């Protein structure tokens, strides 16, 4: 820190010095010159000054009253939730209004005080950012000397020893993060399988399509032109445990179904995946995995609300607009002896957003 301002001949006890002289001297030692200092009101106690004082007092009072109101509201206002329009719906707004007003009053009082009552002042502080090259050299020498004292470069044995000691320790510090590693292709290869994988989740029995409440779905449950979100009929099949399994089961109108069937042949994995006029496509968008859930009956487009990718259902759910690059995978379906939909196999390509090792 700079001491060049110290004036050892200054005697703070000298009788003719006023307190402000001491303030100025202190500021001067800190490199600050108070060049303009003037009370806001030339004469103390004038009407104008009193007026400012009253304004400030007013805001302090507002703070007190509003804070009190806040406490009262917090304690006494009916706050417990009731369904419908009741007084409790005003609890939070009342808290906000009273607390806001209390804090605002405190802020206003301080700002008015600072701007209208405190003396007008202009001070100038020096910056002192000239570089002291002597200091630089002294510190530099100290640093270089430190290296010299350790003198690792002249002690190759220690150099090697440090390297051999530090590297394993560094590794030891990082390895525990390995606890986070989970093999994405381990147990059941989850990136390539969904809840419709009969072998993994249903003891090899075909997996039915079920509604959100777990009940199986019959063809007559879906009206022509309609659609329904279906889940794998396995334990936890409708929960987020199988977040890649939600499927859109669509009942196409006759001519759309005809078109769809014609187009089906063009995509190898989709062949034979339809059942009569029904198709099922993954609901998990191939862009970033949002549920693509807005189905436009007129155009047979499925729109993902996240980034507006659009998929043409009648052409193997091909992406026709937006950032998605891949078709929605098709779930091959059939109807079992009891008349319920089931998946004739799991999805044949990975569901959802793409990743590196996805073919």
């Amino acid at each position, binding site marked *: *820190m700079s001491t060049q301002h110290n004036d050892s001949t200054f005697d703070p006890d000298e009788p003719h010095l006023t307190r402000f002289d001491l303030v100025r001297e*202190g500021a001067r030692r800190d490199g*600050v010159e108070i060049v303009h200092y003037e009370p806001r009101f030339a*004469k103390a106690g004038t*009407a*104008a000054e009193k*007026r400012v004082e009253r304004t400030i007092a007013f805001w302090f009072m507002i703070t007190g009253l509003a804070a009190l109101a806040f406490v009262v509201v*917090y304690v006494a206002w009916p*706050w*417990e*939730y*009731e*369904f419908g329009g009741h007084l409790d719906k005003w609890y*939070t*707004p009342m808290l*906000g*209004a009273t607390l*806001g007003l209390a*804090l*605002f009053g*405190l*802020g*206003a009082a301080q700002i008015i*005080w*600072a701007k209208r009552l*405190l003396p007008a*002042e*202009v*001070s*100038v*502080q020096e*910056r002192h*950012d000239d570089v002291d090259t002597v200091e630089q050299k002294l510190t530099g020498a100290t640093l270089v000397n430190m290296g010299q004292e350790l003198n690792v470069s002249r002690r190759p044995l220690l150099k090697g020893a440090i390297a051999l000691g530090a590297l394993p320790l560094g590794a030891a510090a990082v390895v525990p993060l390995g606890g*986070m590693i989970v*093999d*994405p292709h381990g147990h059941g290869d*989850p990136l390539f399988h969904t809840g419709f994988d009969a072998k993994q989740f249903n003891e090899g029995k075909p997996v039915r399509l079920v509604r959100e409440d777990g009940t199986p779905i019959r063809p007559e449950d879906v009206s022509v032109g309609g659609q329904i*979100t279906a889940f794998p009929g396995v334990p936890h099949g409708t*929960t987020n445990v199988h*977040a890649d399994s939600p499927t859109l089961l669509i009942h196409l109108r006759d001519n759309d179904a005809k078109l769809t069937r014609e187009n089906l042949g063009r995509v190898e994995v989709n062949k034979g995946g339809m059942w009569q006029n029904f198709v099922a496509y993954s609901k*998990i968008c191939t*862009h*970033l*995995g*949002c*549920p693509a*859930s807005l189905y436009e009956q007129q155009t047979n487009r499925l729109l993902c*609300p*996240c980034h*507006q990718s659009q998929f043409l259902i009648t052409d193997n759910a091909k992406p026709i607009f*937006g*950032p998605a*690059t891949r078709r929605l995978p098709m779930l091959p379906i059939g109807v079992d002896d009891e008349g319920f939909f089931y998946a004739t196999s799991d999805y044949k390509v990975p569901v*959802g*957003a*793409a*990743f*590196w090792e*996805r*073919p």
Partner: protein
Amino acid sequence: MKKKRFDLATLPERSAKGIDERFHASTPLRRMFNKVFPDHWSFMLGEIALYSFIVLLLTGTFLGLFFDPSMEEVKYDGVYTPLKGIEMSKAYESTLDISFEVRGGLIMRQMHHWAALLFMASIVVHMLRVFFTGAFRKPREANWMIGFLLFWLGFMEGLFGYSIPDDGLSGTGLRVINAITQSIPVIGSWAGFALFGGEFPGTVIIPRFYILHVLIFPAIILGLIAAHMGLLVKQKHTQWPGPGRTNKNVVGVRMFPGFAMKGGGFFMITFAVIAAMGGLFQINPIWLFGPYQASVISSASQPDWYVMFLDGIARLWPAWETRFELFGNGYTIPPIFWAAVVLPGVIVNIGLLYPFLEARFTKDKEQHHLLQRPRDTPVRTGLGMMALAFYLVLFASGGNDVIAQHFDISLNAMTWIGRIALLLAPPAAFWISYRIALGLQQHDREVLAHGVETGIIKRAPDGRFYEVHQPLGPVDDHGHGQLEYEGWVVPKKMNRIGALGPAIRGFFSPLEVEDKEARKGKAKELAGKK
């Protein structure tokens, strides 16, 4: 011996002495009291960020008393009847409880969220101020970098924050985060599985984000804010040019009491605004979104505003996917990798290094403590506006479905408008602001040379009309002003140079009459005039 009486009057002095004997505090303390701060409204933007961060710490700590970051499934049995009996995670349930069953919990949640939005908004505006005035130049590059990092840390912190209540909206966000992580070449799916502890969503992501949100990131942010402030104190504030202000001084008021009092006042007002908003304006009503279910989404689901530009990139980036074969296996680089990993990476690095890049291109090695007006640095102003235009197009595109619905434009058209605007708007913004800056500069110099237009029209003997100009300083033989442009406001209206005298303030009666005597005198004077 008589027991000494305890003397209250000298207590402050005695304890001050005692303290100084132990800590030698008087010099550093006085130095702090006397530190000079320049005054300009634009220097307050960073303060707002600081104050809202304090509010975030306070309200966040309150939330932490009640929030349970667990993904264990429970059946809801609380007071909010529409969700009764529904399966949900404990995280979501406890957020519902904070909203409905903790007294004052809802206002705390809402204040926390509004404070987060205000925090990010003030950081952005503060950053623009620093950029356009050149406050980042040597020696303040490090503080620019810290501030820039604070934006990104705040961005992540907010993302973690709104992910942890595990409602319909936050789950969708988590899924997108998962997809972005998995898009990284080679390690993507490993990184995603490490983060989520297995396949999405797993059972650990909320506890992990929680610890990031309430411990790790706040600690880093706090540390960086401390460093930011420390450097500010050490390097002292920049100031605008003006009378008496040089590159070697700071002109303003001392920190105590004036500056500190105003600062305290502005803190209270920031706090007041957040409290009022938290009480009066609903935000993130998670009970309307329901618990996260992979199969459900409401349309127009938008992230917080500071994340929207990323959503915008995801929407606009064309479907450019790379697929190739290696050793008989197929591999993919999804387009989102370029949009959401590479592009933000490039933006972060350019932003961080900007002070050095500019110094390099302008070959400027000087120390700068005086700010520049944007008009005086047309290239920088242009570049800044270019970046801003790029950001704004992405930001608007993050809500392009809402815009499309509102103005009845087709979604596809909105996407294309966004794509084209992303390419055209930045250069246009550069060119326009460059020209405007030059124009303003030109006008300043004109006024310095020819004086202020007075509005007085005269007719010369030869019948020609001309306007009288008031020179701002001494003129040469041709009547041209000789003042140099100093990089500060040039008065352009007559009342700016005192032609009209100040207006008399006061609504019913003049405020500035000093006291009753004077007022009486003034009244007499007025009466006498009649």
